[in-house]
């Protein structure tokens, strides 16, 4: 009979993988073709067996065995600070070992490590102070800008309708910035010769 069912379609039908229209056509042919029916019955039995293979037995205490294989403290948690601290410690230990191996005494290594720590702290304090000062200046600047923006909005809203005031002030600020940038380019301010 023409248009017989291929085995792969039979399996797909048994798995419910054919769409409704294809399934109807499949069933229609099956009702008319005894050869395909025989092939279908054979594969249906196979399919039933495929999907009902006995599960393998998991021994008692398997989960416990797995958990015991995970060492305590080897948490899966992502701890970036712990990793950073561990890396710093490993680096310090390596440097210490290296300097001891080079023949330096433990006392001199510890003294120089202490000096280096103080120097590092001394260098970082001014940097920290500068950072705080810069942050204060930036905050001042931002609050000034916000105040002038609000002020312009108030003045403008007394002349134009309130719903037009906000876009107008925005446009004004954008034009100002564009003018500043244009002037900067024109005068080559900040550009290297």
């Amino acid at each position, binding site marked *: *009979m023409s248009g*017989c*069912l*291929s*085995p*792969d379609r*039979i*399996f*797909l039908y048994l798995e419910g*993988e054919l769409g409704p229209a294809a399934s109807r056509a499949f069933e229609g042919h099956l009702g008319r*073709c005894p*050869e*395909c029916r*025989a*092939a*279908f*019955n*054979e*594969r249906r*039995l*196979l399919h*039933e*067996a*495929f*999907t*009902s*293979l*006995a*599960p*393998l*037995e*998991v*021994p008692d205490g*398997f*989960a*416990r*065995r*797995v*958990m015991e*294989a*995970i060492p305590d403290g080897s*948490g*899966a*948690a*992502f701890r970036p600070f712990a990793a950073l601290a561990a890396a710093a410690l490993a680096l310090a230990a390596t440097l210490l070992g290296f300097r001891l191996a080079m023949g330096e005494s433990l006392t001199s290594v510890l003294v120089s490590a202490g000096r280096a720590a103080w120097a590092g702290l001394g260098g970082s304090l001014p940097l920290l102070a500068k950072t705080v000062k810069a942050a204060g200046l930036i905050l001042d600047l931002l609050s000034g800008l916000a105040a002038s923006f609000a002020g312009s909005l108030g003045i403008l809203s007394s002349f134009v309708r309130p719903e037009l005031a906000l876009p107008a002030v925005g446009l004004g600020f954008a034009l100002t910035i564009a003018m500043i940038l244009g002037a900067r380019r024109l005068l080559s301010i900040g550009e290297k010769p």
Partner: protein
Amino acid sequence: MPEDSKLVKQALKGDRKAFEMIVRRYEQPLLNYLGRTIGERETALDFAQDVFLKAYAALPSYRPAWKFSTWLFKIASNHLIDHWRKKKLPLVSLDQPIDGEEGSLTPQASDPGPSVVRVLELAEIRDRIERALESVPEMLRELFVLRHVSEFSYEEIAEIKGLPVGTVKNRVFQAKEMIRRTMGAP
């Protein structure tokens, strides 16, 4: 029972009990998959433990948007591939036809060959399938197991294996026809 993603979240906070629950939930499906694919229960148990340890170590990289079972079985599948590489088994390319002829395993049903299962009882068929499975190349066997033992959808298998869905369907079908032929062989 808490959802997988919830358990993963707890495990990431260091809750070992939560991960133990994950192990208990997946020990059976994972052992079935590994055992049926490699054909040795004891080795499969060792592999299952290895896979859980790898999954535990990789938990920080897991994203809740992913289906946990698919993620776990992907780790297991990679573990099997490593095992086959170490054993130097010939890895069948899943993108190429097995016999060199794409249609060689797709005869028309009008020529069904001997009906090898007609007279057999289901239990006997299962026994024969288990034996016949050993003769199927590992890579095809794995896909068959993922589909019919682990009961993943073709789309999920495609995700686990990184293959097109059509290729997965074709290979699973080839595995089934190989099993059928082997069962009918004298």
